[in-house]
């Protein structure tokens, strides 16, 4: 990565001893990770390692059994997606959590609609804002008034990303943001992540592609069977080291 991350101050967000069990199975077991401004931390692991569950506790989609979430050093009470939004935590989900039957603007503002003085939703204003923000991210986008079901994977993803950018996310969770995308669109997301880093936004990135993790992330936290194997700075380890952590749960010597 082109610039170094200053990790001397308070982390943007800190997860301490997070626990979550489903019917006796510990999906997340005593996991602690942190994230600094302008940093991308990859959350890696096999399917079922617990990374999505961990992230869902941050985004409020699941409630934690125990553990603590600190935002800017202060204990944060996150019990539902609304709480998470109040802490400026935005999530971009793997399966593109959009309502297919609504248009781009309705999706972008879903749950936070702009309203007229009479309290009715202001579609024209929302479409105008959507045109502005999406014009920045995907200049060729034109289909503002069709349901998003008719959009390509990349266009749908850019609606989801626009939503996070528009509402000034400080902490962004991306759950395999490029899984549904083509080559060009993946490059676009990578560019966008770089830009967001420059603005001091912290990003948790869940991904399976080791190559991409090496490219995009500053640090990688690897999970296996609900436990944290370790957190490494990706520049200081090889791809094989990371693979070893994921597959064997073996921590390389250099890790913190």
């Amino acid at each position: 990565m082109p610039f170094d991350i200053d990790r001397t101050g308070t982390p943007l967000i800190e997860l301490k001893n997070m626990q979550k069990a489903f019917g006796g199975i510990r999906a997340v077991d005593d996991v602690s990770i942190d994230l600094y401004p302008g940093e991308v931390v990859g959350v890696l692991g096999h399917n079922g390692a617990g990374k999505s569950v961990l992230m869902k506790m941050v985004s409020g989609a699941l409630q934690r059994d125990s553990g603590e979430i600190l935002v800017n050093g202060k204990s944060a009470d996150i019990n539902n997606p609304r709480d998470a939004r109040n802490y400026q935590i935005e999530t971009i989900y793997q399966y593109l959590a959009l309502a297919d039957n609504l248009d781009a603007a309705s999706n972008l503002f879903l749950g936070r609609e702009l309203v007229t003085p009479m309290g009715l939703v202001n579609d024209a204003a929302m479409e105008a804002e959507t045109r502005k923000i999406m014009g920045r991210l995907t200049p060729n986008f034109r289909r503002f008034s069709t349901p998003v079901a008719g959009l390509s994977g990349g266009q749908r993803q850019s609606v989801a990303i626009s939503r996070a950018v528009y509402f000034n996310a400080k902490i962004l969770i991306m759950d395999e943001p490029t899984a549904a995308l083509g080559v060009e669109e993946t490059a676009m997301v990578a560019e966008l992540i770089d830009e967001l880093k420059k603005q001091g936004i912290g990003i948790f990135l869940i991904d399976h592609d080791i190559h991409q993790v090496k490219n995009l992330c500053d640090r990688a936290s690897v999970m296996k069977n609900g436990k944290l194997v370790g957190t490494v700075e990706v520049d200081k380890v090889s791809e094989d080291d990371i693979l070893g952590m994921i597959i064997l749960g073996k921590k390389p010597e250099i890790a913190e």
Partner: protein
Amino acid sequence: MSDSKTLSEPTRTEKNLFAQLEIDTRLLGMIGAFIVLCLVFNFLTDGRFLTPRNIFNLTIQTVSVGIMATGMVFVIVTRNIDLSVGSLLATCSAMMAVVQTVIAPEWLGLELGHGMIAPMAILVGLLTGMIIGGFHGWLVGYLTIPAFIVTLGGLFVWRNVAWHLTGGQTIGPLDANFQLFGGIGGTLGETGSWIFGVIAVAASLYGLYSARRARLTHDFPVKPIWAELVIAGIVTVAILGFVAILNSYEIPTRRLARMFEARGEVMPEGFTTGYGIPYSVLILIAVAVVMTVTAQKTRLGRYIFAFGGNPEAAQLSGIRTRALTVKIFMIVGALCAISAIVASARQTFHSNDIGTLDELRVIAAAVIGGTALSGGIGTIYGAILGALIMQSLQSGMAMVGVDAPYQNIVVGIVLVFAVYVDILYRKRTGS
């Protein structure tokens, strides 16, 4: 930049007339089907189907199912179903009948025809509907019992709660003011209807104008001005034409004479006047407007459609989906109560079988009107048009002389066929 745009934008086909007008082609198809239906019946009945009298009756008969169908749209859009609306209507009707005939005169000592009786009954009816509806919603939303089961239970329970409330008796006659909402007994009259028509036209035109202005202030593409004028013209003709037809159904001379007598006047020689718009139809129009605004212009409506399109996305967006379900069923309950007012006022008494099988008519109306059971898709005007088509079909066949059992066979087939056509339409348009 402009070079790359020609490559990256898919080729578009030439816009046809309807696309330029930006009219929902599905709505157009339904109106077309409705017109064909009317013309066929008019031919088969030697012109008796499209008389002012029959059109007047058709609109009155459509009101009760039409009101509930608007609420059913919300329920079906959120992937639920409500099988209890007919029974809930009966319970609301029973409560209101009891207020009018027992509570007001006997407990409160109000004399017959007291001005407070009708408002009190209506208030009790609305509360009953909303509480029961909200209870259904709570069972569905919070206890996660499937809506099909909750309302199937409700179908049995509320039909017989109604029976219990009245001791199984038919209760009537209802309060005179209350009966005004029944249809022919309460109409605006010619002048009032024209005034209403002009206001409705003005409101519609203002709506079209302000929508265009809003798009222009944001520099969005707008329809060509001729398209706007065509739509404005169609709307104006439709509203005023409807008023003219209802006004041209004349009150029979003897009835008029009695009305003058009741006021202590003598009817002038050769005096005639039309009925105009019934109050019950005004209620349906008001419900349609409020429900359409709710669906398209409020957060509640936005959340209903988002929840129907993708329940998980709605939840992750911070929408309180369980409370939403309660609200939807409460709305349906209130609408059942309003339907109960119209239905019981129309027959001038409460009977045990009021609203029987209405749940099926209401669901059929919503579905024929284009509400998809898979969720997320449906319109209020479609549901009302669906109710109108169902009612026309039924009374048209009755006029032709088709026996009731055969009528039901046809209605059943039409329902299935209409949904099949809808599926084909959606496949072709890709929506």
